[in-house]
């Protein structure tokens, strides 16, 4: 694969938290690359630095040292406003507890990232309907999240994450709040998206999901323990 196929590159990335005189190193030098179109799993127990890595990958936080390059953008050089812009256009967040807006309908929830991308209302609605159909919720457009099952909620969240056609989807334990049957359903959705070309980075503590990923990055104690390349199912 050529250089231009590399979507995400982390070079000796470190994150240290400072609290008064104390410094707590959380990430101690992370190195990995994610190629376009891969389904990557970052697996780690709690305390491994998983959340911190997720925040950095999601551009909610910046590394203390090292490099995070997304496409050809170097993250550490960016201002708060530019980071928000990249989050909006390049990253599709999917949360463990869905984080849907309870007072908005399915359609309005899907529209939120497009709102911040200044997409005109008409176009937003069209895209939202299109995406809702893609996650098989075309018949639920006017429903509120409280009227949906957990699995349906997560599908709305996936549709929302896709709305601005991001560079990659960043999923944080997307099946953590779901039962087994629904989890399988959601994982199937991710595979479908993967097959249609999406790059997905999924952070989880659950080693059982390992078999789903093209590439597994294990985190232990702030270090990438072992990178398994090209595991095919």
């Amino acid at each position: 694969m050529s250089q231009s196929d590399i979507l995400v590159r982390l070079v000796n990335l470190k994150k240290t938290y400072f609290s008064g005189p104390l410094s707590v190193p959380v990430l101690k030098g992370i190195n990995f690359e994610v190629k376009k179109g891969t389904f990557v799993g970052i697996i780690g127990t709690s305390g491994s630095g998983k959340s911190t890595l997720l925040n950095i990958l999601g551009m909610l936080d910046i590394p203390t040292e090292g490099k995070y390059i997304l496409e050809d953008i170097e993250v550490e050089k960016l201002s708060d406003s530019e980071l928000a812009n990249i989050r909006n256009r390049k990253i599709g967040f999917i949360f463990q507890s869905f984080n849907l807006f309870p007072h908005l309908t399915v359609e309005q929830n899907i529209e939120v990232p497009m709102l911040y991308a200044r997409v005109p209302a008409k176009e937003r609605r069209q895209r939202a309907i299109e995406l809702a159909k893609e996650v098989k919720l075309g018949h639920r457009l006017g429903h509120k999240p409280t009227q949906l099952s957990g699995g349906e909620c997560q599908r709305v969240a996936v549709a929302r994450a896709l709305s601005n056609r991001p560079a990659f989807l960043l999923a944080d334990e997307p099946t953590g709040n779901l039962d087994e049957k629904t989890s399988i359903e959601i994982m199937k959705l991710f595979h479908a998206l993967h097959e249609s070309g999406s790059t997905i980075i999924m952070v989880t503590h659950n080693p059982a999901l390992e078999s789903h990923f093209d590439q597994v990055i294990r985190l232990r104690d702030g270090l990438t323990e072992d990178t398994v390349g090209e595991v095919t199912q």
Partner: protein
Amino acid sequence: MILPRDLLSLSLHNLFLHKVRSILTSLGVIFGVGSVIAMLAISEGAKQKALAQLDALGIDKIIVYSKKPPVEAQQQNSNNTQLVNYGLTTKDIGNFAKMDNIASITKLRDSRQPILRGLNRLSTKLAAVDIGFMTESNSKMISGRWLTPADYENRSLVCVLGENAKRKLFTLQTNLLGKTVKVGKYRLRIVGILSNDVGANYPEVGDPNDIIFIPSTTMYSLLKNYAPDSTRIEYDLSLVKVQDIAYIDDTAKRIRSYMEKAHANKQDWDLVVPLDLLKQREATQNIFTIVMSSIASISLIVGGIGIMNIMLASVFERRKEIGTRRALGAQKSDILCQFLIETVLLTTIGGVLGIFTGIGISQLITIYADMPSVYSSWSIITSLAIACFVGIVFGTYPAWKAAQQNPIEVLRSE
């Protein structure tokens, strides 16, 4: 940055989600703005009423009138006779006429004749006036005619009834022209009915509507014994009209100094310059407005603090929403604007409701306390601007606080 239209609908949506809370929150502003509107309406009404009354007296006039002197002054000057002479004299009027800047002098003299209906004495006065009185008092005829030069020349036994005098004497009867009013042994033929709807009210004489007018010449020739209460007054009232209103104060000063000399120690006269009263009224009005607006601003500040409090609580309650929005790409400024506009909308909607509340309050005052209320577009625009301003002032801190929420922390605290 989010599109302004979307921002507005987002903020409105959030307010409508919590209708009761929004209304309770903006109560302070509702009553604050309500009291501003009511205060302005009532004070404007009072001002206009006062202005109209003063205007009715005529701003180009100096009113010089006779008044009953206090008892001590009477004893000093009366030499123990029963008959008391006081007030404006023909000589005084003659001297006024010689002064500069005088356009005309219109005189009125009360006959002090009892006007009876059956055996009841009415509060109606019979007064002899100069021919110019109708115009100078801003009155108009509602039927018949005013006194004519011929009436004066012939000393005719004719009279013009003020509107109230007519009602007291004849209740609802119509077609009174040609009928007579009996005063003493004379019968006065009614030639017209006069109305003064500008609210003129002359010192010591009162409302022209309560007067029966006769030509001054008629009075001198026929009703000589006009002083049953042992007083003799030549004139009760004179309306001194000036040529140039700019020098009205000088003219008034000159009249005053003349009268002080001519009526030394008598205290049997006084002088009113409606224009001066008007200026004084305006000054008092301004003080009233300042006092009222400081009270209203206190209620607006209290209302604003209440809103700030609720908005801060709302920011805390909606941390997860803020964090999610930030993760999905909202700028800090998007969050700031969202919350600021929410607060401003809250206070502005409160302001609109406050305007209706204020109109309601002032209407109640108008109905129950008989004080007129006048609404100006100026007062409505001002109070809306104030409401908006309160929202900006008290919404900025909560909005800033919302924008400062760290998305990492709020997303973790689930």
